[in-house]
């Protein structure tokens, strides 16, 4: 079975149906070896490689571009933990995603493009 981490989803002002309000989507983190932050979003880097030094990375697109550099480090630590605890599937929230946040949607993944798989440079 895969190792997964869940992330808050439905980050737009257009609510999805009542069934699935305030939901999460999960990301497979098997083989993830690094997490970086850029322009307020997070990038999970995987061991999956192909020619020309390229490797797989997945962008986590937050509505408010609210991810901090510290969040990248926190997510990497959680990935290490989950990889030692199969089946745990925890939820990862950004540092500033607190109950009193003025715009909670900013700390959730974009509705249309929550994740994007990319061929990128290894880090």
């Amino acid at each position, binding site marked *: 079975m895969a190792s*997964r981490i869940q992330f808050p989803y439905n980050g737009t002002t257009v609510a999805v149906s009542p*069934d699935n309000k305030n939901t999460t989507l999960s990301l497979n983190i098997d083989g993830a070896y690094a997490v970086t932050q850029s322009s307020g979003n997070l990038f999970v880097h995987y061991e999956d490689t192909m020619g020309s030094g390229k490797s797989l990375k997945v962008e986590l697109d937050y509505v408010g571009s609210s991810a901090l550099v510290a969040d990248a480090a926190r997510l990497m630590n959680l990935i290490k933990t989950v990889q030692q605890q199969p089946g745990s599937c925890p939820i990862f929230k950004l540092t500033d995603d607190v109950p009193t946040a003025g715009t909670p949607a900013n700390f959730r993944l974009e509705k249309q493009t929550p994740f994007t798989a990319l061929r990128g440079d290894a880090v």
Partner: protein
Amino acid sequence: MGYILVPIDKDQPLAVAALPVGTATGGGTVSGSGASPAQVLTTVSGSGSGASATITKGGDATIATATITVTVAGDGYSIGDVVSIPAITGGSATKTTLVTLYTIVDGDLVGDSTDQTLPAEDVLFAQPNDDDEVDLITRNWNSGTGTGANAAVTKYTIKVTGGSAISDEGDLAFDADGALVKEAQGHLVPEIVWNSAVVDSGNSGLSVTYTD
């Protein structure tokens, strides 16, 4: 290797295409040339309705060599349903003297005919696609050289029926993700449970397509 199950709706529209030649019966003497006027299919056994088809004469005067082409998909058909086409009279196009009978077989429906099982361990995430589709993006490089979003990896596209009734494709992504999470939690081949917008309209999974 873990898997998830995509439940497939067994009652579907017909594919708008030619049915297999040689499997229809009846029809009496087939004459004329070219496609007949479209005829509404009558369901002899089963529950489908609303489809229409034409008959085009083949190499002899029997229905065995004629081509039956579905022109209107209808809905609610399943494998084993028997439909009939009335005798077609008049005009110069293909005519028949008796009722034609046809039994729906695998491949006549617009989608898959059985539930689909997908390997979950290679799936990175569920991605909203369209009102009636969700993509499962894998970690496997595809044969192309694309560098754009999700362009370098393979994917499964799950299509559900009743697209216009579904309020939001984000729901479908969440539904599929639910099964992925259960697989990660050790459930044995968890099934995707579609949200009420799908289920309440009497629909569920229609097809699974793998794209390299």
